[in-house]
């Protein structure tokens, strides 16, 4: 079998040679670009050309530190790697000027340094000691931000396709499956089904033609882990799928990527093309006799296609509507053939398990949830971004150590975990370890890993309404409880938020939620009521406030607010009077003004206009 060993050594040498060249890497994932990364890229290129410096400029995937985007790294041979954050086009030139010309890093922009064995620069925190990275363990995201995702040589240099080589040369199909079963890897898409057993089921179904499918639909709002893997390290997914193909006896794979990730699709296409050019994918991989071809199927905007049978229907060119199970996909999936479906992150773990052994993987995590999980920290948190943590870490550690606590020192209220199919967890349960089973006990679920932190200014009824509006719009419409029930729950919640809540609404919400959860055909319907049921369980008082006192404690539900002018603070400058669209404000110049609650449409324009912030909403 043609081996990659020499090729790998050669690429490592090339990578190291390039290591002793000065390199500037700029994060150009979708989030990097959204933060203005491209302007930094052109400014740096322009600067390097004018100064005709011998510097390689490279684009990388994201390191996960969205709060610091755009990110620029400076690699000077013999020195630690310096990571600069919140870089503007002009500050980037300044930093390079000072760093490259005079060898002095500019601490005010630095996020951290990575010594890489060299003498760390004085009084600059090391990356691995920063709060954000300290308790992280980067296995799946290991190469993201380090290698150039469009260069297969980088991937191979960092141990890429070694696992595939090992599988094809030394291991039988059952050995591979046993290894995955021993590692205790469970599905990262949200369900948490043991991956080894899933592969075994597909392996055991007869049939010459089988498929390997990767679910990269990632429809959860607030979740972008898969995107950063697809954009930052696409080959890790390809390798994982190839190994799965070998293990279950499939020769064709599909990656179902959502239409809203054009950059991910572009990078995946390039990665597949490069891998096929090097004989690592396609026919007779590395002369091993095993062939495996991967195609990309672009989604077209339907969250329900994250459900496996809906996803398969979408690939087949049909409406993405789930079907009855059994038969499970392992027995009859894509075009009726046995199919194995896993999430991007699940496949990305495979090469690590094969290379470092099941023991290494099962060493991380708790007894029934093994390995690491990538979470997308968003919401009112100081450090938003991607964090890969060992399973079992407590919520407090994730929110306060990694996330750096709540923005502008507001009070922590709850965290929504598992996206619109998950539930919210209040402050009282912050100590809960994050693993599959304890989250389900709290009425939430691991889900794909979206973790939205909410501070005291969030109204839980409004959050429940927001999530239900999402699942209601994304329901496929096949089964009655989900098609009709989610809309009826949403109508009740909207009534409550507009101040027309009725006492029996809570019972109706709970009864409807119970029926939808227990009778819907697929995961979407079965989990759609979770946000409402969870907020009802932990924040029932807020619902009662909205319904009985027609008040919104967090001041979010506009119709329930009373906007009042504080007579002491009001100087009578009439600014608010002119801006008020409903002319609900009365009072003479220099006299304290007042708002007529009947006319006031609660647009809060006066609050923004008042220079003495004499107007409050309560």
């Amino acid at each position: 079998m043609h081996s990659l060993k020499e090729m790998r050594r050669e690429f490592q040498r090339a990578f190291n040679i390039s290591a002793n060249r000065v390199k500037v890497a700029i994060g150009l994932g979708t989030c990097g670009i959204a933060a203005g990364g491209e302007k930094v890229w052109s400014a740096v290129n322009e600067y390097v050309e004018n100064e005709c410096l011998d510097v390689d400029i490279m684009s990388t995937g994201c390191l996960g530190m969205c709060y610091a985007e755009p990110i620029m790294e400076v690699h000077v041979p013999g020195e630690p790697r310096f990571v600069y954050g919140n870089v503007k086009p002009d500050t980037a030139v300044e930093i390079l000027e000072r760093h490259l010309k005079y060898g002095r890093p500019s601490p005010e922009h630095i996020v951290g340094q990575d010594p890489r064995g060299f003498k760390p620069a004085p009084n600059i925190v090391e990356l691995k000691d920063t709060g954000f990275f300290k308790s992280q363990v980067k296995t799946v995201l290991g190469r993201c931000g380090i290698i150039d995702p469009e260069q297969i040589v980088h991937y191979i240099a960092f141990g890429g396709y070694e696992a595939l080589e090992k599988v094809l040369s030394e291991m039988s199909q059952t050995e591979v499956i046993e290894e995955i079963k021993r590692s205790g890897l469970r599905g990262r898409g949200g369900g948490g089904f043991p991956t080894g057993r899933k592969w075994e089921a597909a392996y055991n179904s007869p049939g010459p033609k089988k498929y390997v499918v990767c679910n990269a639909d990632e429809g959860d709002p607030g979740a972008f882990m898969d995107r950063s893997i697809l954009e930052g390290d696409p080959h890790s997914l390809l390798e994982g799928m190839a190994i799965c193909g070998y293990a279950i006896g499939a020769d064709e794979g599909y990656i179902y990527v959502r239409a809203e990730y054009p950059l991910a699709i572009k990078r995946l296409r390039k990665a597949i093309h490069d891998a096929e050019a090097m004989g690592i994918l396609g026919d007779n991989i590395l002369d091993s006799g095993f062939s495996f071809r991967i195609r990309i199927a672009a989604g077209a905007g339907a969250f329900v296609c994250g459900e496996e049978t809906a996803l398969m229907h979408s690939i087949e060119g049909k409406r993405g509507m789930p079907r009855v199970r059994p038969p499970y996909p392992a027995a009859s999936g894509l075009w009726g053939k046995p199919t194995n479906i896993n999430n991007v992150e699940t496949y990305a773990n495979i090469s690590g398990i094969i290379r470092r052994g099941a023991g290494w993987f099962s060493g991380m995590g708790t007894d029934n949830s093994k390995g690491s999980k990538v979470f997308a920290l968003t919401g009112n948190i100081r450090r938003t971004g991607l964090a890969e943590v060992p399973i079992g870490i407590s919520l407090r550690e994730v929110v306060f150590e990694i996330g750096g606590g709540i923005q502008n020192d507001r009070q922590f209220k709850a965290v929504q975990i598992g996206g619109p199919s998950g539930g919210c967890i209040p402050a009282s349960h912050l100590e809960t370890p994050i693993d599959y089973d304890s989250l389900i006990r709290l009425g939430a679920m691991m889900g794909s890993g979206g973790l939205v932190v909410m501070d005291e200014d969030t109204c839980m009824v409004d959050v429940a309404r927001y999530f239900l509006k999402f699942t209601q719009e994304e329901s496929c419409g096949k089964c009655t409880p989900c098609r009709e029930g989610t809309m009826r729950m949403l109508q009740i919640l909207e009534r409550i938020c507009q101040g027309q809540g009725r006492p029996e609404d809570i019972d109706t919400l709970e009864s409807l939620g119970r029926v939808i959860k227990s009778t819907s055909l697929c995961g979407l319907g079965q989990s759609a009521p979770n946000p409402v049921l969870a907020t009802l369980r932990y924040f029932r008082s807020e619902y009662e406030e909205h319904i009985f006192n027609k008040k919104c404690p967090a001041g979010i539900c506009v119709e329930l607010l009373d906007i009042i002018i504080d007579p002491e603070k009001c100087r009578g400058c009439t600014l608010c009077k002119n801006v008020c669209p409903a002319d609900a404000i009365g009072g003479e110049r220099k006299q304290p003004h007042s708002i007529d609650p009947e006319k006031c449409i609660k647009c809060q324009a006066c609050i923004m206009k008042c220079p003495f912030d004499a107007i409050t909403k309560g």
Partner: protein
Amino acid sequence: MCNCGESVRDQRYTALEKTLSKYRHSTGKIIPVLQEIQDIFGYIPTDAIREVSRELKVPSSEIYGVVTFYGQFHLQARGKNIIRVCTGTACHVQGGGKIVEAITGYLGLKDGKMTSDDMMFTLEPVACLGACGMAPVMMVNEDAYGRLTPDEIPAILARYDENRKQGDDEKCIA
């Protein structure tokens, strides 16, 4: 009856024929075909559904079902520039709603209409653009804008608004 040689059907239909011939013998390729048609026309014309049905031997009731199921396909013509505003969790919590109000105000969209009268812009609220760290986020065609505030909106949109180019506030000299 005009006797000019060049057939009346504009070049968009010839592009359609090229797409269809590419997919004639494949199965299950409805969605890629519709995505290409969406790029050619900006929407899916009904007679295009008929031709896809004839070429790919798939019932037009199934194709119509697919077109009306997925959010990416549209049966009506859309504006030249597509504004996709993220209404994902993070953006919602960071004030995404105000951005939408600013846009609808700027474009003068009333009672649920999503395309401006001059067919210049179409507003599409999207569930998540995957850049939650930059919340609130908006994309105009392929360009992404993060950490937005309502008053930045008019300036950003004006760049895409051809009618506004000769307009007053730009005062562009060239």
